[in-house]
């Protein structure tokens, strides 16, 4: 990674392959996640509540026969307002063999970023813990925060995975 960066500093024009990111909006901040983790994007539909789950776990839905949990990142990171209407979007992620849906305010774009376009993540000022950040990128008129969605989803922070199971998988 660092090697790639050094190279990028030398030759700004040709700095290795670009990776694609899906950008979305939480409150008034723009975020992006690796597109390879995204399985599909769908509208928010009613969920089945899970008792005794933290408030940001909205419940589970039936995704073609799989029971998939839905997490509202707006509640978890206290950004924006958790409203649900016909424009509310669920991004279904597939990480390792597990699926999870995350609720966001809207999905904006798919962007390609090369290593040189990425900046190191800020230490503060974002809702996400810096453990889950991969960096920053500047688009035309705003900053996009790159989220390490795999680390976030499998972290104990979200509590989506049984602790014992997680140990087994890792």
């Amino acid at each position, binding site marked *: 990674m660092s090697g790639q960066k050094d190279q990028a500093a030398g030759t700004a024009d040709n700095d290795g392959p670009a990776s694609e990111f899906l950008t979305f909006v939480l409150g008034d901040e723009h975020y992006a996640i690796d597109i390879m983790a995204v399985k599909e994007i769908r509208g928010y539909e009613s969920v089945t509540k899970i008792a*005794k789950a933290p408030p940001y776990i909205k419940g589970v839905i039936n995704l073609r026969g799989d029971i998939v949990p839905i997490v509202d990142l707006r509640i978890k990171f206290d950004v924006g307002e958790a409203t649900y209407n016909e424009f509310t979007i669920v991004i279904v992620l597939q990480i390792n063999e597990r699926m999870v849906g995350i609720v966001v305010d809207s999905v904006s774009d798919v962007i390609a970023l090369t290593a040189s376009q990425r900046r190191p993540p800020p230490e503060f000022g974002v809702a996400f813990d810096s453990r889950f950040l991969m960096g920053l990128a500047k688009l035309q008129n705003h900053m996009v925060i790159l989220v390490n969605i795999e680390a976030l989803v499998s972290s104990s922070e979200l509590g989506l995975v049984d602790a014992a199971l997680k140990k087994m998988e890792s």
Partner: protein
Amino acid sequence: MSVELNQFHSVFFEESQEHIDTMERLLMSMSVNNPDPEDLNSIFRAAHSIKGASGIFGFDALGQITHIMENLLDQVRKGQRAVSNDLVDQFLGVIDCLRQVLDSYRNQQDIDWPAVERTTKLLEALLGAAAESAAVEEDDGFGFFDEPVAVQAEEDDGFGFFEEPAAIQPQPEEQGWGLFETNQAEAGTPGKSATSAKDDNPAKKPASGESSTIRVDIEKVDSLINLVGELVITQSMLKVLGDDLGGSNSRMGTVLAELERHTREIQQSVMSIRMMPVSFVFNRFPRVVRDLARKLEKEVDLVLEGEHTELDKGLIEKLVDPLTHLVRNSIDHGIERPDVRRDRGKPEKGTITISAAQRGGTIQICIDDDGAGLNRERIMNKARENGLNVSDEMNDADVWDLIFQPGFSTAEVVTDVSGRGVGMDVVRRNIQQLGGRVNIASRALRGSTITITLPLTLAIVDGMGVMVGDQTFIIPLVSIIESMRPYPENIEQLAGSALLHVRDQFWPVLPLYQVMDAEPRHTSPSEGIVVLIETSKRRYGLLVDELVGQQQVVIKSLEQHYKRVPGAAGATIMGDGSVALILDVESLADVAPILDEEIA
């Protein structure tokens, strides 16, 4: 060679397993005084087949044992050695060793060579006792010829490799062994002789019949079952849509009804692929009973009933340990010693009956003995010793239930058979994990009956749909006693929670909305519906808003993408595509701690 043969390994393991099982079964059923020569031949052939094939694959440990075993069996077969109970026991021991070695090869573990050597020595000692030097000499020649010939046959003729051992049999015969008198005529045509030797085996297995089978990877079957589960869900969604559109009178309604019927039939036949007869478990018990009875110097007859009852493969595998434990218990604690039985006016030989039968959507397995029955006094004393809260007024069923407590054993002597108290609670937990229940009935001096009730399959559960607010939950039907809307006068308040009085019994009422964080329409038991639930541990009433109806639901895992949810055994997809939680009535009561105080 071995690389090319790898693909045959799994077939070898399965066939050898069958041969070992055949030998064991025949040995078990053999009459010591008047052994059936045909049985002896079959046992010999089984040992021989294993020996031949293991030579091809280089499984030396198997070859070594079966080689000597074969010599011994040959003597027996020719009447040079009498069959005795001791000899049968020795052979059974050898078979255990074979089984172990086979498992080691199968799992690619290290072979327990000391055990193999021990068994070999034991057999050699037996053989030496007969001391027929001629047999030993011929022996060597046989061992020498055996493998090369078999391998050659395989390469040349492209037979399934299992025919080879049979194919080489004529060879030693010509050397004056005089084996296989019936096959003598075919000695010159190995192919034919092989076929006839092979045909003998199925004929010896009455259970397997003539049905032709194919071996299919269980994963393929499971994925098929999953897909059909999806199909059933889609079909019921379609039905809901169809009802909304035109009702059941329209042409669409007719077609949808047809689709429903076909889907159900497909589901049934697909589920039946996974079904296996319980004889797969039962067949091991003659051996268990025999060994244990001899060890404990008791006389026990074993009766098996309903071996053809079919159960899901997954269930069958998980039944082995609990059932073995229960059978051993029956022999150890239940059946009395012959002298005691005579004094009590019972036949000296005790009887244990293991039966299986299908009752609606469940399977019942009973282990019934005519032994001493459970000793109420001793259980009560032990319970007090363990600090359990018991009273003399408890009815028998509740007392018998005590033996399922962890660490509960009333055995006076701790033997290697039982008495360590790790048993019954584990048995019950295992059965519960399969969605089943264990009940005990017992009468002093008459014997006891342990009944295990299991669902037919693991993938589908018969459930009752209930509503709380706008959420639907499924309660497994096996644990529901009845549902009712109670009269206000039958409800009493105790320490902030309700007790329902039904027919002389008090049932603590657990409001489902409290446990499941739902918003109910009714908070008072007399306005909603109370579902009376009985698990093996406790009884309670579950307060819900209304009943939706009984239905079969496909169990979906919550853990696949999420994690275990307290109080839920899983989830299912309803006809409208929404998700409903299947309640785990046992852990549901754990979630609500108030209940424990009231029941205890």
